[in-house]
């Protein structure tokens, strides 16, 4: 695993919007300017102090130049080396050329001393500047190397965690199936128990199927072969088609599920199967991670004739702020947060799955030129916002693109 791969594993492309990226660039530029400004202030301050201290040792008229030399060499070579170099050069010049200290007379020697002093200061200043630059380069390289190593270690930890989670998620249901089938085969349990075992086996099988589907899809994406064919799709129809299954699942957790769909909306640019799967993942997560008896609200609206928005809001336990930026990342599984909206002391549900559902939802929605976003507050709930461009908008953009 080389550093480049590692970084691309961590920083999923397309994860942050362009606005985010611009904000980050602006912030780092501002930080750089502030840092330079701080260095300049310090340099001038320290140089002034050094000049004041050394003035008694210097020929008259030299101190302003000395100050200048310090400032220039410190600015070029860095604070420490610059001041040190200039101070040393000043001391050397003064002690070599002015044997009886404090008995200055303005004369030809002073001119000579001045020239020698300035030449020595400039030479040392330049030397220190080039050293400072090399030092800075070395530091930069070291820093980059360390960042790459940390990224690689993190990527490898993420992979290990994924393997452990995948192994756990695949083997646990298999064990249940194995134990229950053995019981069904060996003993002859009463009808009620028999049905219960069979129901458990069926749901464990469904879980296995979901997992295997997600694993296969993500490896297909890896291979660059995820085929999304967006066309004219009525989002309302897709929601209505999923409604029955959402209601069954919500009822299992005694959630109150409200589906508030606008009577008519523009057709969206989507792949109906992809949209159905993304929507199911989001709603199922809301159902799963909201304490029983919660409230889940799905609403849709359109923004002009450009965009259709589907919002899924729950009053669940919320997503930890540190997890929030990563929930659509591959293999990312959040931590179980204890503070439920119900305030019950019951432990939070296990974080299930292997961290692929929301990742796949994002990839699918982005394949339809849409976007997906989550807002959340611990103890209050989470809202996932799915935005899809309308079919007309995409056609318009395409024809504008051709016209150019």
């Amino acid at each position, binding site marked *: 695993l080389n550093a480049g791969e590692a970084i691309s594993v961590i920083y999923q492309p397309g994860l942050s919007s362009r606005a985010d990226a611009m904000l980050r660039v602006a912030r780092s530029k501002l930080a750089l300017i502030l840092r330079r400004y701080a260095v300049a202030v310090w340099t001038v301050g320290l140089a002034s102090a050094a000049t004041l201290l050394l003035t008694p040792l210097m020929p008259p008229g030299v101190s302003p130049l000395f100050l200048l030399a310090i400032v220039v060499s410190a600015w070029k070579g860095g604070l420490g080396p610059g001041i040190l170099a200039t101070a040393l050069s000043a001391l050397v010049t003064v002690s070599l050329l002015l044997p009886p200290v404090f008995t200055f007379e303005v004369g030809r020697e002073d001119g000579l001393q001045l020239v020698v002093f300035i030449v020595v200061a400039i030479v040392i200043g330049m030397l220190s500047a080039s050293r400072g630059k090399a030092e800075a380069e070395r530091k930069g390289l070291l820093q980059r190397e360390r960042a790459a190593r940390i990224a690689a270690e993190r990527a490898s930890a993420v992979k290990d965690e994924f393997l*452990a989670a995948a192994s756990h998620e695949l083997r*646990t249901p298999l*064990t*249940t199936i194995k134990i*229950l089938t053995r*019981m069904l085969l060996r003993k002859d349990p009463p009808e009620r128990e028999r049905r219960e075992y069979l129901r*458990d086996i069926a*749901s464990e099988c469904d879980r296995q199927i979901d997992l295997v589907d997600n694993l296969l899809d993500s490896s297909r994406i890896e291979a660059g072969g995820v085929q999304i064919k967006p066309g004219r799709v009525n989002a309302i129809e897709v929601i209505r088609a999923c409604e029955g299954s959402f209601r069954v699942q919500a009822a299992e957790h005694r959630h109150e599920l409200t589906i508030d769909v606008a009577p008519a909306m523009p057709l969206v640019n989507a792949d109906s199967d992809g949209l159905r799967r993304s929507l199911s993942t989001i709603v199922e997560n809301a159902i799963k991670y909201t304490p029983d008896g919660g409230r889940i609200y799905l609403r849709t609206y359109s923004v002009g004739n450009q965009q259709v928005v589907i919002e899924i809001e729950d009053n669940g336990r919320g997503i930890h702020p540190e997890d929030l930026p990563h929930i659509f990342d591959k293999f990312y599984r959040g931590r179980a947060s204890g503070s439920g909206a119900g305030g019950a002391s019951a*432990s939070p549900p*296990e974080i299930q799955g292997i961290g692929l559902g929301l990742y796949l939802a994002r990839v699918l929605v982005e394949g339809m030129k849409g976007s997906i976003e989550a807002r959340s507050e611990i103890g209050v709930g989470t809202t996932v916002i799915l935005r899809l461009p309308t079919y007309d908008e995409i056609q318009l953009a395409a024809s504008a693109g051709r016209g150019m």
Partner: protein
Amino acid sequence: MAKRLLVVEDGERLLRALAVTLIEEGYEVATARNGAEALVSVSEKLPDLIISDILMPVMDGISLARLLRANARTALVPIIFLSTQTEIENSITALRTGVNACIGKPFDPDDLLAAVAGILNN
């Protein structure tokens, strides 16, 4: 008197299936869904043997085993790990914490029953 077993497993259905199997074998069974719940159960009544998953939320099996081994009251309760990690290193880590046996998922229930009986008869 029936031997008391504590089963610690976060998979709800597997926990139920294990409990039913062990009860049918004549054991008294307590259940917990993670290490923290297991500690509560152990503090209420000491089991004769603990069967625990490794990968669990809140507190995993390894931490549970370490805590149990560090406490004089629980240091000698035998532990069987149901390991999902195929890597041998994890089993070694587990055995270092003083666990008596490691059974890899998916396991044959008969193997688990044999391990339980073997340890309890010792």
